[in-house]
């Protein structure tokens, strides 16, 4: 068990690098809010947020090191969330 744990814990250097990247992306979110992109305001903010969440899930929450069942379970969950948001937009977009 201990060796299994050790195998997939990233080094402090890697984790610090990911943290730095997350902070940069947070800065990007703030920065992009000052640029008028019209319709693309929301997609841009959501894309950055999705990228950040993906990094957290992969490295801090160890999804990268898990087996198939956990990965598929997560992908299924993300798909459900996407469908829920997407189907709601059918209403909002065509109202």
């Amino acid at each position: 068990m201990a060796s299994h744990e050790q195998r997939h814990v990233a080094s402090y250097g890697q984790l610090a690098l990911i943290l730095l990247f997350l902070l940069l992306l947070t800065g990007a979110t703030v920065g992009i809010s000052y640029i008028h992109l019209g319709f693309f305001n929301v997609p841009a903010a959501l894309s950055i947020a999705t990228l950040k969440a993906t990094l957290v899930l992969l490295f801090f929450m160890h999804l990268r090191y898990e087996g198939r069942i956990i990965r598929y379970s997560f992908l299924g969950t993300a798909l459900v969330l996407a469908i829920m948001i997407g189907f709601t937009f059918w209403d909002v977009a065509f109202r």
Partner: protein
Amino acid sequence: MTAAPSFFENPSPPGLTGIKSWLLTHDHKRLGLMYMWAILFWFVLAMFLGLLLRTELMSQGRTIMSAEAYNSMFTLHGVIMVFLFVIPGIPAIFGNFFLPIQLGTDDVFFPRLNLFSWYLFMLGGLFAVVSLFLGEGFPDTGWTFYVPFSVGTESNVSLTVTAAFILGMSSMLTGLNFVTTFHRMRHPDMGLMQIPLFTWSLYATAWVQILATPVISITFVLIMLERFLGIGLFEPDKGGDPLLYQHLFWMYSHPAVYIMILPGMGVISEVIPVFSRKSIFGYKAIVWSSMAIAIAGSLVWAHHMYTSGMSDVSVFVFSLLTFLVAIPSAVKVFSWVSTMYKGAIAMSPPLLLSLCFIYLFSVGGLTGLVLGAAGTNIHVHDTHFVVGHFHFVMFGGTGFAFFAALHFWWPKMFGVMYRFRPAYIGAVLTAVGFVFHYVPMLILGLQGMPRRYYDYLPQYETGNFLAGFGGYLLIAGMVIMFVNLFVSLRNPRMAPADPWGGTTLEWTIPSPPPMENFVETPVIPDFPYDFRKFMAGGKGGGKGR
């Protein structure tokens, strides 16, 4: 079969005695029974409230209560029935008790989390009760807590949505436990296509519990934020969207219908082959239809919103998707009927209740198509037709499946057999009372009587009187059924390990089961519904009177 002390005599963790051995138990079977007593308490309470409501409506004008009391009472009836009986009923009682046994293992993956879920369930129930007596009393919003009324009303919405939030947490954790147990604790020799259909239905349900429940939890938090901070998420004046609440609410609450019905379908899939002495017809089709219902059922929430001002594109898409759910549901019904075809039918109370389920659920499903079609929906939206329809599904479906499960597994859970004659009388009276109770509601709805109204026009009086009369018959039938079951505990006639001639693993162990479930390593059958040995040996049939 090796004799071993039952789980009643052998506590888990060992050494605990008396009430502690129940309140601190890690045993899934004890927890199943603890859920059972709590859920039955809520069921009886909500049933009594429902009877009072229908008594009020039996004649025009005030009959036994004020309009305010009526509003609070139908909310309380809905909240208790939905969150404290129908959603947890089959998974929390029979799922906890039988899922690990059917998977050939000794407990769920997280036994302590299982106990914690029970405490959350009790705490949620306690909050619901407390909200009756604090502030301005129980909400008058209906169980849907629609905004803006739920944000503005003086009644105790905050505490009640907190109760529902906690209950949702309990449901989610139970689902998590079941999915993990299914994948991690299953007997190594048991392949996916060797798993009993009840467990498959619980697995499909558990995914819906895990994925949909957080949405309602967040929605309840948003109601609280609106009430206390007025952030304006649902107010157009503040840039909010008034329909957003309805989307969020039904994103959970429609899939919740499948949390309620899928385990019931699982029960029927167990009962029908046993009493037909025949392998289930279309095992794989039933497995896949469970998963298909779980998936498709999660994509149809906005069919509750056709008249809300939603876009026409949405109405079209959600109507289409709603009709798709009918396909896997019909696959199950055809499979059950085909299983009985040319089977050696042995009538018993669980089978009779299952047949009632098939009939009543089918009516519920077909009336659902009337509501799913956008054209007809406009005419019957928010009428008594809707009340009749969802009671046919929730009560005629899940309720009768719950009764069937009680009668099917009662000998296994308690090791005693009940008398058949009162069970038959109770079942028939319940079914007849049910039809008298709810068919008038369908007709009243088609005639235009709205739901949730305290009073009505004179032309609706006959229908309302008949519905009330049917309600009394229905309750008389249920009283006979339950008294008969409880009498069997007081005057026990011991039940054998396999009184029905079942083939799934729970029938291979003693009644009631030992603490570790299996004294010897279970032998996993190639197919869970192989009745050839019973048919060859002539075993089977009920052992009741």
